[in-house]
Structures are given as structure tokens and as C-alpha cells.
């Protein structure tokens, strides 16, 4: 079995190869391309499972110490950047899940992108190339033994997410007749949003990596996590904190971006503008898992130098996780779009994972990551199947009667669905399994993993007394669990129960096998996945991966005993939520005001508008940036007829913007106006310095250098 370890580099390389082959050679042959992609990921899966098996059989030696293959890469003067591969229990656990879920999604994509159908996507082959690259990025991240390769893979995923979320914004206007302009625009905006938002985190992460490298001279996990190195990092003071804490927080910044934690979560719901398999890929197996993985992998940095309960970096993780978990769940209550609900549920569940890690428990966080990957992929693919069915129904309807063709039908809108459990049984049952798993009903996977996190929080809260941080975390988690159940109840009631509320729903029909079979397979995992770490089966994962950070001497992982009270409370909350959600919405009719809206009133509007976070960002970051850019443009543009007119216009626009958003945020209009005037005047004055003559500029530079040199001389 040891033999499999030698194949580890192939795990990310095979999908990468598939990407290269498709892009370079076979992009004109659709079926071949998708088969290459699927073949690549399938082989990766086989190798990965071989590795997992080898790790299991290898016993503690492999699971804790790990297997390593360093590859020297870049000689830079005297040092060498090395990239390499490593496998330990933690990696193996990830390797069990990631390629397999990816493979399921790949197979499903073949059906979803309508292979061989008349409405097959025109960039079908390109799509498979991108998702292959995406998978390669995630797999590279998982098997990396150092932060460098991890960061490269990380950025690769960032690029792929951009390409895939914006997949439908690339349209060939010469060959395609029906271009949905609104969709193109939305996709483009979503792609940009995802890229830029995660970029904020990436920059932080990069800063963290650079800091770490400058202090330790190494990016290899094993070397960084040596007790001496960690101690050395604690001793260096940076911004009044131990350097290790600063680095950990910077790394967490990266994770916040990638894993869509509050406040950088805004990109994730929009990311569903991409094709549904992409959403599944992003939400389950790859992108968002990367952030959690990063935090888990660098957990010793978060703890080093402190007690687990009092490590500031770790507390940040826990707090952000708890906020995200609660916050995401509440928004999910008020969404109509089937995928949007799932997107917010992902955010919320990611919050749970961060919570688990923030409590210092590697296993709790990762266990939830693994189970969540299965059931969230299932749910997303299921929702894709539903949408696919709805679109099919819509086509049929539109085909029969022309006057329906032009209505603003939205196949994602849950309000137009209803009663689909009879039309699409093969989608319905797996979907139910996923729902139960997400909600956390015994014995589905989500129950065990969520319970583990909550038990961890509860345990700590009992140790450190009530009203301490773990208490609030636990409370947020439990409340979040209830709300999760509530919105999932609402969703399945709206989608699968009741009467069809649109003709499309009544004509919807089941999706092809390539879509439903992956659903069923994933459903099996959603059902049994939790036993991997179920307490009554001996908490297998704990032994398998719990001790990977043991060598750092700061992370100690002992399984928290199963607490019937915690499990009971959360199960009760889940059942209650699910049933009440289901009961309330079971008989919802088209056109009715939603029950929640009736009861919650303005709160519901707030939730529906996602706490206005997007608007806030728009106001605080984007608008000033755009406005500033406009101003700069005007300064620079001599063809502006009359700067004064422009000024008045700007003032007017800014003023009207202010009044429009006055309810949410008050902005001092005098400030804005004054700034505008100041900028404009300054610009008018400064523009004369732009002579267009390079030598003038250089002269200024030289004079400045001279002055600086003079200063240096004066104070030498």
C-alpha cells in the first residue's frame, strides 16, 4: 500500500493535465473533452482513496508523522523555495472527500450542460477544462506540504472561480442567437465581485506568508510548526502582539475571504450566477473548503503561546464563525431563490466549521467540513436538478403556447415551484436526505458533525463559566441550528409540497441519469457519512487525524465526550424548526404574502435584503471609489466642457445619493460637498503640472532626490 504514496503528486497533476489537454488539443470535441476531465478526476479519486487506505493501514506512524516528498523548485540566490507534497491523517481525510465529490459533480455536469442535446452549452469543453483546473487547485492545496504551493493552488482556485462564476458572461455574439443580456451582466458582476472580494483576503494571506517567511525562512508546515520555531515567533513582537498572532490573523483574513465569512461573505451568494455544478463545486468541495482547510492546517499558529481558551487569534476565529453561522442562517430565511437559500446556508455552515476550529478543535471543524461537503454538494446538485426540470417544463409550456414565451419566468424562484415530489421523485428523495443531514437529524451525517462542534462549545462553556465566549458561541450555534431547520423546512415545503404554482412546475419532469445517479450516491454518504466520527463507533476520525498537530506541542486534541444534553437540545431545535417550517409553508399559495413576512415585518425585509451589507459596501467602498475615479477622470480630461457644470452635477448626484440612502446610513453632506470642492479645486490647480513633457517630470524627481540627499546630509 505504501506504493500509493509515490502517486500523490499525480493527484493534483491529473486534473491539471486534463485541463491542459482539453484547452490545447481537444476543445473542439465536446464528448471527448468531458470524458477526459472525468477520467482525470476519476483516476485522481482512485489514487486518493488508495492513499487514504494506505494511511489507514499505515497506522499512527503515517497518520501523525505523515509522508513527505519535498521538491526543490526555485533557487533564489542562497535559499531554495521548495514545493512538496505531504500526506497525514488530516490530508487523507480531505483526500477521501474532495476528489470524490468533484468526480460526482463532473459526472453530473455532463448532464447539466446538456451533452449532445440541441441546447448544449457552446463552451461545453471549456467548462470542463475550467472545472478540471479548479479541482487541480483544490487537490494541490490539500496535498501541499508548504504554504507556497498552498498559496499557488489557492490563487489558481481564485482564478477558476472567476472564470466559472462568470462563465455565462462570455458569449459569442456572432454565433449565438439567444443571449440573455441581463444574465451576462449579472454573471460578469458576480465574477468580478467574487474575485475582488476574495482578493482582499488573499492579500492578507500573502502578507501573512511573507511575514512568516521573513521570520522563519521556511514555508514548510513541518518546519514552521516545530516548537522552537513557534516559540521564536512568539518572542518577536509585532504591533504590540506576538508575531505569531499577527500572522495567524492575517492567514485567517485569507480564510475569511475564501470561506465567505462575515464580513467578506458577500461574494458567495452571487457566485451562483455560474452554472449550478460550479456552485456545488465552490460550496462543497473546493473553494470555501480551502479557507477552512487553511485555518485547520495552520492551527498551531493560532494557538501558539496561549491557553486554547484564551488565544486571541483563535477567539477571533470563533467569534467570526459564530456571527457568520447565525447571520447566514437568518438571511437564508427570507430568500426566494432556491440556490440563494442554499448559498446562505453554506455561509452559515462555514461559520460552524470556523466555530469548531475557533474552539481549538481541529477534528470538529474538519468533520463538519467533510460531512457538509457531501450533503451540500447533494443539495446543490439537487437544486440544479430541480431547476433543470423546471426549465424543461418551461420550455415545454413555451413550446405549446407562444404567449408564455416572453414572461419573466425565473426557474430558480421557489415561489413558482411546488409539488415537485411527484414529478421528480429521484431528485426528491436524495434531496430530503441532504436536508435532513443539513438540519442535523439523527442519524444523518450533519447531526454528528454539528453536534460535535456544539458539544465542544458546551464543554468549554461549562469549564469557563456562563456568559463567557464559548457560551455565546454555543448559543449562536444552537439558535443557528434551529433557524437552519426552519429555512430548510420552508424550502422543501415550497419546492416539493403543495400545488404547482406555475405551469412550468406542473410540466417539470425528472432529470437524466447522469444527474440523478450522483445524487443518489451522495445521498448515501449524507446518510452514513457521520458514522466516521460517531462517538458510539469509537470516534474514528479523532484517532485518524486528531493528532497531526501534536508535534507542535500546542494543539492538544482529545475527543469531547458525547453529551446527551447538547445532542438533545440541538436535535429538538432541529426537529422543531424543520416541522414548523414545513407546516407553515406546506400550503403556501401563489401570490400570498409570506407567513414570515406577516409575522416578522421589517425584520423580514431586512433579512431579505441581506442586512443591506451589499448596499453598505456599495456606499462605503464602491461608490466613493467610482466617484473618485470619476473625479480623477474629469481632472485629466481637458474636453470637459465646463468643470463647474460637472461640479454642480456631482454635488447634485452625491446629494441625491445621500437622500436615497439616508435611512440606512447618515452621511454628512457638507463633508462630501466640501471634499468634492476641495478635490476639484486641487485638480484644477494641479493639472497645470502635467505638461506632458517627460523631462519636466524627471526634473522634479531629481530636485526631490536632491532635497532628500540634502536632508540626509544635514542630519548625518
Amino acid at each position: 500500500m505504501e506504493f500509493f504514496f509515490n502517486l500523490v503528486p499525480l493527484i493534483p497533476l491529473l486534473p491539471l493535465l486534463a485541463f491542459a489537454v482539453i484547452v490545447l488539443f481537444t476543445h473542439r470535441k465536446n464528448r471527448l473533452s468531458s470524458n477526459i476531465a472525468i477520467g482525470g478526476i476519476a483516476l485522481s479519486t482512485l489514487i486518493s482513496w488508495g492513499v487514504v487506505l494506505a494511511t489507514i493501514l499505515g497506522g499512527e506512524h503515517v497518520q501523525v508523522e505523515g509522508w513527505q516528498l519535498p521538491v526543490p523548485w526555485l533557487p533564489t540566490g542562497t535559499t531554495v523555495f521548495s514545493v512538496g507534497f505531504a500526506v497525514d491523517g488530516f490530508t487523507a481525510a480531505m483526500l477521501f472527500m474532495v476528489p470524490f465529490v468533484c468526480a460526482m459533480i463532473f459526472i453530473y455536469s455532463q448532464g447539466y450542460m446538456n451533452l449532445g442535446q440541441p441546447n448544449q452549452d457552446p463552451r461545453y469543453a471549456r467548462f470542463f477544462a475550467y472545472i478540471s483546473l479548479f479541482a487541480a487547485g483544490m487537490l494541490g492545496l490539500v496535498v501541499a506540504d508548504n504554504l507556497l504551493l498552498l498559496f499557488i493552488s489557492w490563487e489558481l482556485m481564485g482564478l477558476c472561480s472567476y472564470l466559472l462564476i462568470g462563465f455565462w458572461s462570455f458569449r459569442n455574439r456572432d454565433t449565438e442567437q439567444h443571449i440573455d443580456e441581463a444574465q451576462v451582466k449579472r454573471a460578469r458582476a458576480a465574477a468580478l465581485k467574487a474575485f475582488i472580494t476574495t482578493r482582499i483576503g488573499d492579500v492578507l494571506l500573502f502578507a501573512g506568508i511573507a511575514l512568516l517567511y521573513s521570520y522563519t525562512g521556511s514555508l514548510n508546515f513541518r518546519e514552521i510548526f516545530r516548537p522552537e520555531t513557534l516559540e521564536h515567533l512568539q518572542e518577536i513582537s509585532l504591533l504590540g502582539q506576538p508575531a505569531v498572532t499577527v500572522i495567524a490573523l492575517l492567514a485567517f483574513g485569507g480564510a475569511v475571504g475564501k470561506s465567505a465569512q462575515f464580513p467578506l461573505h458577500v461574494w458567495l451568494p452571487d457566485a451562483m450566477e455560474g452554472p449550478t455544478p460550479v456552485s456545488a463545486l465552490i460550496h462543497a468541495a473546493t473553494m470555501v473548503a480551502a479557507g477552512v482547510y487553511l485555518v485547520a492546517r495552520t492551527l498551531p499558529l493560532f494557538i501558539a503561546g496561549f491557553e486554547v481558551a484564551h488565544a486571541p487569534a483563535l477567539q477571533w476565529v470563533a467569534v467570526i464563525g459564530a456571527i457568520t453561522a447565525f447571520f447566514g442562517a437568518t438571511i437564508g430565511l427570507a430568500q426566494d431563490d432556491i440556490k440563494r437559500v442554499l448559498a446562505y446556508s453554506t455561509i452559515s455552515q462555514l461559520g460552524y466549521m470556523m466555530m469548531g476550529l475557533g474552539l481549538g478543535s481541529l477534528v470538529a471543524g474538519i468533520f463538519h467540513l467533510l460531512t457538509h461537503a457531501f450533503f451540500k454538494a447533494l443539495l446543490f446538485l439537487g437544486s440544479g436538478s430541480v431547476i433543470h426540470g423546471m426549465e424543461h417544463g418551461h420550455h415545454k409550456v413555451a413550446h405549446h403556447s407562444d404567449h408564455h414565451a416572453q414572461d419573466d419566468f425565473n426557474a430558480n424562484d421557489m415561489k413558482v415551484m411546488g409539488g415537485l415530489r411527484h414529478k421528480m421523485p429521484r431528485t426528491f428523495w436524495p434531496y430530503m436526505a441532504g436536508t435532513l443531514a443539513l438540519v442535523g437529524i439523527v442519524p444523518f451525517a450533519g447531526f454528528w458533525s454539528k453536534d460535535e462542534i456544539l458539544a465542544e462549545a458546551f464543554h468549554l462553556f461549562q469549564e469557563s463559566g456562563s456568559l463567557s465566549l464559548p457560551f455565546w458561541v454555543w448559543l449562536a450555534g444552537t439558535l443557528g441550528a434551529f433557524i437552519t431547520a426552519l429555512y430548510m423546512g420552508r424550502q422543501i415545503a415550497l419546492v416539493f409540497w403543495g400545488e404547482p404554482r406555475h405551469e412550468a412546475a406542473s410540466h417539470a419532469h425528472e432529470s437524466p441519469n447522469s444527474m440523478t445517479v450522483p445524487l443518489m450516491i451522495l445521498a448515501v454518504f449524507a446518510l452514513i457519512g457521520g458514522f466516521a466520527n460517531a462517538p458510539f463507533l469509537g470516534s474514528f476520525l479523532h484517532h485518524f487525524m486528531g493528532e497531526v498537530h501534536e508535534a507542535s506541542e500546542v494543539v492538544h486534541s482529545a475527543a469531547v465526550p458525547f453529551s446527551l444534553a447538547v445532542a438533545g437540545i440541538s436535535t429538538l431545535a432541529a426537529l422543531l424548526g424543520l416541522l414548523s417550517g414545513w407546516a407553515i409553508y406546506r400550503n403556501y399559495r401563489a401570490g400570498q404574502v409570506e407567513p414570515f413576512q406577516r409575522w416578522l415585518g421589517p425584520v423580514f425585509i431586512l433579512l431579505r435584503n441581506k442586512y443591506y451589507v451589499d448596499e453598505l459596501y456599495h456606499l462605503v467602498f464602491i461608490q466613493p471609489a467610482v466617484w473618485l475615479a470619476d473625479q480623477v477622470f474629469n481632472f485629466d480630461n481637458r474636453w470637459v466642457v465646463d468643470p463647474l457644470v460637472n461640479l454642480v452635477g456631482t454635488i447634485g448626484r452625491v446629494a441625491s445619493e445621500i437622500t436615497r440612502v439616508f435611512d440606512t446610513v447618515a452621511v454628512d453632506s457638507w463633508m462630501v460637498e466640501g471634499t468634492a470642492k476641495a478635490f476639484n479645486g486641487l485638480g484644477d490647480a494641479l493639472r497645470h503640472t502635467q505638461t506632458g513633457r517627460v523631462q519636466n517630470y524627471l526634473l522634479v524627481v531629481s530636485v526631490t532626490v536632491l532635497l532628500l540627499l540634502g536632508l540626509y546630509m544635514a542630519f548625518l
Partner: protein
Amino acid sequence: MPVDQIVKTVVFVIFTVMTLGGGLGVVVSPRIFHSALFLVLSFAGVVGYYVLLDAGFLAAVQLLIYIGAIAILILFAIMLSRGLMAERQSQSNQQWWIAALVALLIFVVLAAVLWRVDWPVASQQALASPSNAISQEGSQLGRDLLGPYVIPFEVASVLLLVALIGAVILARETES
């Protein structure tokens, strides 16, 4: 002062006259073609410097690249854009006197600073006896460039390629 010291000093002075005189010629000569020839003179002076500094390989490279390629290229460009620069018209722009002042001041300040610093010069002994690095200069350079400095080396090669392509595209006649 031993004989070879005097010789070296004299040679240094000669090369300095070449370098700085050539440089001055470049910047004040009223005819651009003469500027370019002065540039060659200045480069030749720098070649001499390198020989004095025991950097034979660099001297050859300086000769090859600067005189054999860059100066020739500049002459070529001058010939191509001939006729526009009316001969004998002033070659300096309006800000030349400020520029002269600034350059002079910068020189004064730089010279003052450089003079004050006590450079950590290697011991006389190390300087006098040609080290291994000097006698094996060529092969050692090769080894360093393909060893520790291989990345900058490769980057430089890519830079050259890009410059080559860029220059061809830029200077190409646009086909109309």
C-alpha cells in the same frame, strides 16, 4: 610609490578623461551624431576602467554590447531620423540651466556623501593578491549565473526576448 602604482594612476586618469570627457561631449555636443561618437568614447573609457578593475570579462562584454551593439544601434537610429534635426540648432531645451544646476548639486552632494563614508574595503592583502574569483572569472561567472542566479538569469533572457519582439513590433511599418 612603486612604478606600477604610478602607471595605474596615469592610466586611470587617461580613462577618466575619456569617460567623463566623452560623457560631457555626449550631453553638450551640438550635433547628435557627434554625441553618439562621444558616447563610444565614453564607453571605451569604461572598458578601460573594467580592465583596471580586473574585470576582463566585463570589459569584453562592455565592448561587445555597448560599443558593438548599443552605440551602433543609436547611430543607426540617428541616421534613420536624419534631416529633422537641423544641424547646428541648439540641442538643449529651455530647462537646461536648471538641469545643469540640479545635476551639479546632486554631484556635489553625492561626492560629499561618498567621500565621508568609510567603506569597508577588504584588507590590502586580499586586494593585492588576485583571488580565485578573479583569476577564474569567466568560468566562475558562468557557474554563478547558472547556479544561484539562475532565476534572474532566466528572467533576463525572457526580458531580452520580450524586448526583441517588442522592438520588432514597435518599429515595424504599419501596413496600410
